[in-house]
């Protein structure tokens, strides 16, 4: 279904697509270009070439501390989302029961519900129950908004496997857990993997939840970026942005290699 699939307008369509692609890519390329500038401030066009800003920022605690914290938070959130999302995906894909639509709507709602509001509501909750552990609060908040991604990717994987392989395993003597572990899990590895990465990335990039729940000791990367943008005036800020962009590109390529991006991300 290619070659001619686009009909007569192909050339026009490809050109338009090219322009839009340019629009998409340019903002990702600029920070990279600016980050090599050998000037004390971010200037355009960049002048000279230096790697000193990279060296500077990887030694800058205002960058490394939030970075490491966000990695930690992202891992916790991904684990939480996998633990909650995987059984949910199985329940939703393997059973039909009255109220299934309601449950599905509920667990996927953080995708469309204004995240800002989710964050406020959580802040309200944690304040009223006196939950002062910012890390716990953040992990719960991030798990909440990343679970839908795991449910989606794992459900997509579950729908691709033949459920009778599970029946087969059970007739062969595997109990519920063994069936999951030895038959279901290996077959949904791409979904689990994609879901985990998604949860991690979503958490790593989250601002709207973190802005309400973070505190000085638990200060995630996007908020640090927000603060650094207004404080760091040298190309170090561009270097940080470039590092973030590079990290994302690596993740995208890995995901695309492993599972086929579109399936993993389809909403």
């Amino acid at each position, binding site marked *: 279904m290619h070659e001619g699939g686009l009909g007569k307008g192909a050339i026009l369509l490809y050109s338009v697509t090219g322009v839009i692609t340019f629009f998409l890519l340019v903002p990702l390329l600029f920070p990279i270009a600016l980050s090599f500038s050998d000037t*004390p401030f971010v200037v355009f066009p960049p002048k000279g070439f230096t790697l000193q800003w990279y060296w500077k920022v990887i030694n800058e605690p205002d960058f490394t501390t939030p970075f490491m914290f966000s990695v930690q938070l992202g891992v916790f959130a991904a684990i939480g989302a996998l633990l909650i999302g995987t059984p949910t995906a199985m329940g939703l894909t393997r059973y039909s029961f009255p109220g299934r639509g309601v449950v599905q709507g509920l667990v996927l709602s953080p995708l469309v519900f204004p995240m800002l509001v989710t964050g406020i509501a959580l802040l309200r909750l944690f304040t009223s129950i006196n939950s002062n552990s910012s890390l716990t609060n953040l992990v719960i908040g991030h798990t909440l908004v990343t679970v839908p991604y795991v449910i989606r990717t794992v459900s997509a994987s579950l729908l691709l496997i033949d459920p009778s392989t599970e029946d087969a395993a059970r007739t062969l003597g595997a109990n519920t857990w063994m069936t999951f572990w030895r038959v279901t899990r290996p077959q949904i590895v791409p979904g689990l993997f994609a879901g985990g990465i998604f949860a991690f990335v979503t958490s790593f990039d989250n601002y709207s939840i973190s802005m309400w729940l973070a*505190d000085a000791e638990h200060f995630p990367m996007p908020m640090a970026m927000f603060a650094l*943008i*207004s404080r760091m*005036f040298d190309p170090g800020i561009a270097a940080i942005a470039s590092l973030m962009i590079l990290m994302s590109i690596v993740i995208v390529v890995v995901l695309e290699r492993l599972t086929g991006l579109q399936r993993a991300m389809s909403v």
Partner: protein
Amino acid sequence: MSRLILNRRTLIKTAGAAVLAAPMGYVRNGWAQGKQIQIGIWGGNQGEFVRKNVLPAFEKEFDCKVLAQQGSTLGQISLLRASKEAPKFTVMFVDDLGVEIAKREGLIDPLPKDKMPNLGQVYPRFIYNDGYGVALMISSAGIFYNTKTAKPLESYADMWDPKYAKAISLVTTKNTPSVFMAIATAAVVTGKPYKEAQYLVDQAWPKLAQLKPNVLKLYDTDDAPLLVAQGEGVMGGPEYSKYVYPYQVKGVPIDMSFPKEGAFAGVNCQVFVKGGPNPDLGAAFMNRVLDPKVQQGLAEATIAAPSVGGIEFKPEIAKMLPYPDKKMDELGLFSPDWAYVNKERPSWIEKMSQIFVS
């Protein structure tokens, strides 16, 4: 300028070293071992200096942990309110206006004088609201401008000049200096000094609305002076000098101007949270902030005046500082009647937002 940069780097080093060296002279502080407090501070150079130069030495000496959260005065107050039942913070940095609010709402206790010997060196005028707050740093507030493309502002009235169309970055209504803009406008409208104009701000709104064509944005980030220096408009503010001079010191073409109506005082204070965890450690920290060496380091990092007396500065720094206190008087630094302003503030914020938000 480059000479200045060199000097400044050296200065910071010296200041840092002095702070680091301090522990030797103190008694062991075993009682604080393993304890932790949370404090609220500002961002910008001042915040950075506190986090990178003051806290590490303090933590080492007391074998404790200090968590510093950056925010604005009103935001810090809201944090105190939110955790009123179970306070999280022990020490909070707020502007002078915040001392009044926090005291009125019963969020803070009087400063523990007996545990803060350094209070004795503070100019008496900088102890606020019957000992509920003490200044740690005093900036002057005015308008910053791009030295390449503009001249110092002579009068606030000049801001309305059509040649500044879309060239002024006004401070966000969220931040304290927005109050100064309202008062300055009232002064322009009424021709009265700040002292009287501050009660006549209601007359300022129509005039302020006329400023809108000249306003490029309402900034709420610390880099506004830098952006002006890079050619985004020509001036901005009102802003505390502590957010502007550090850029100038680094060679950015930016300077402060204090129009003839007068400069405003930006007084950074610290307060002692009611019922906060580990109050003794908090008191020790507040005392440390008033330590002359710390005060000097802070002053040099942010080019703002200390609140304690008897500190010597190099001439090129000294000339930028409203210090000592006599010089403050000469500059006529104005502090609004915060009790009155705080009461009116919410409606001022709403009015100003209404004017500028399209």
